C-alpha cells in the first residue's frame, strides 16, 4: 500500500509519504472508509505534509474521504498542508469545503481530542 495507515488509540493516522497517483488516492480512500469501521475509530488524520502538489482530484478525494468518514460516524482532519500548496489550492478554488484542517499532526490530535462539537467555531469548516 502506498500510504501507511496507523492505528493510534481511537484514531487512524494516514501519513502520505509522497505524491500520490489517482489510483493510490482512491485506494487510500477505500482503505480508510473500511478501517474506520473495522477499528471503530472516532477520528481520522490525513497528514499531507509530504505533498508538494495538490491537484483538483487529490483535493476532491480528500474532501470525499472527510465526508464519507463523517457518514461512518467519525471525524477527519487534514493536517500539514504547506503554505505554498494552500495558496495554490485556494487560487484554483480547491478550498476543501466542510473539511477540518490543522497545522500538523500534533494539532490534528489536539483537535480530535477536544471533540469536534466544542470546537465547531474554531475550524469553521462546516459551512
Amino acid at each position, binding site marked *: 500500500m502506498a500510504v501507511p495507515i496507523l492505528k493510534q488509540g481511537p484514531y487512524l493516522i494516514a501519513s502520505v509519504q509522497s505524491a500520490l497517483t489517482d489510483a493510490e488516492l482512491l485506494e487510500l480512500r477505500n482503505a480508510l472508509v473500511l478501517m474506520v469501521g473495522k477499528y471503530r475509530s472516532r477520528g481520522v488524520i490525513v497528514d499531507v505534509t509530504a505533498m508538494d502538489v495538490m491537484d483538483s482530484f487529490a483535493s476532491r478525494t480528500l474532501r470525499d474521504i472527510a465526508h464519507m468518514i463523517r457518514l461512518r460516524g467519525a471525524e477527519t482532519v487534514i493536517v500539514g498542508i504547506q503554505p505554498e500548496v*494552500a*495558496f495554490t489550492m*485556494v487560487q484554483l478554488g480547491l478550498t476543501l469545503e466542510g473539511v477540518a*484542517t490543522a497545522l500538523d499532526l500534533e*494539532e*490534528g490530535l489536539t483537535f480530535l481530542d477536544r471533540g469536534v462539537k466544542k470546537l465547531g467555531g*474554531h475550524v469553521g469548516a462546516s*459551512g
Partner: protein
Amino acid sequence: MKGGRNQVNLEQVQTESTTTLLRELVTHLRQHRTQLREEWAQRITEAKLLTVMTKEEIFAEATSVYDNYVEALETGTFEALQAYARNLSERIIPRGVQTDEVVGIVLLLRDVLARSLFGRYHADFDKLNRILDAYEPAANRIAITVAVGFVQERERTIREQQEAIRELSTPVLQVRERLLILPIIGVIDPHRARQLTEQLLRGIRTNRARVVVIDITGVAAMDSNVANHLVLTVEASRLLGATVIVTGLSPEIAQTLVNIGVDLTKMNTVGDLQGGIEEAERLLGYKVGPVEKVVPTE
C-alpha cells in the same frame, strides 16, 4: 529647394568641417558668454520656469549649465554633462522642480543660442545653414541627455521610496501563543498583497498560529482584486488550520465590498482590533481580566 541643398551640404559638411564649425561656434559662444547667459536667465524668469528658485540661484545654475553645454558642444562627449544633470536633478527634485521646467530651460537655452547664431551669420545664409547643421544635432542630444538624466533621477528616487515603503509594510506579529496579528496600513497593490499572503502563511507555520487577526483599519480603499485576494488568504490560512479574523473594515470598504459582490461568507469580521483580539482569545481559550485584589478600590 532649401531642403535639397541642405542634403547635399550635409554630407559635405559632416565629412569635412563639422568639427571646424563646432569650434567656431564654441568660440562664438565663449565670447558672448556673459550676454547670452543673462539673456537666457532672463528668459527663464519670463517664462516663469524654476519658480521655486531665487533669481541668484537661477543665474548660478544657468552659468554652470551654460558652461557644461558649451563644453559638451566642444568635446562632443556627454559624460560630464550627464553627471552634472544628475547632480542638478538631485538638488532640485526635492524642491519640487517639474520635468517640464527642466526640459523647458534646456530648450530655451537652445533657442537663445540659435538666435544668437542667426544674429551673427544672417549675412551669410549658406554658412548659417552649415553652422546650424552642426549645432542642431548636438544641441538636441544635449537636451535629451539633460531630460533623461532628470527623469532617471526622479525614477531612482521613486524606486527608493517604494522600496522603503515595502520594507515597512507588512509585519506579522505574535501577540500571544498561537495568536498572530497582521496590521495592514496604506494601499494594498497586487504585489504587496502577494507578499502579505506569503508572509502570513509562513508566519502561521513558524509560529504555529491557530488564530490570526488581520487589521485593516489603516487601509483606505480596496478594489475587487485585493478583496478577492484577501478572501483567498483567509481560505489558505484555514487550510493551514488557522482561523482568520478580519478587523477594522471602514464603512467605505464595507460598502465597496458589498457593492462589488465579494463573497464574504467565509470571512470572520469583527469591528475593531480590540474586539478581534478578544474574539481570538476566546477561540484560543484565554480568559483575560483584571488581576483581582491588587488594589482594593473601595
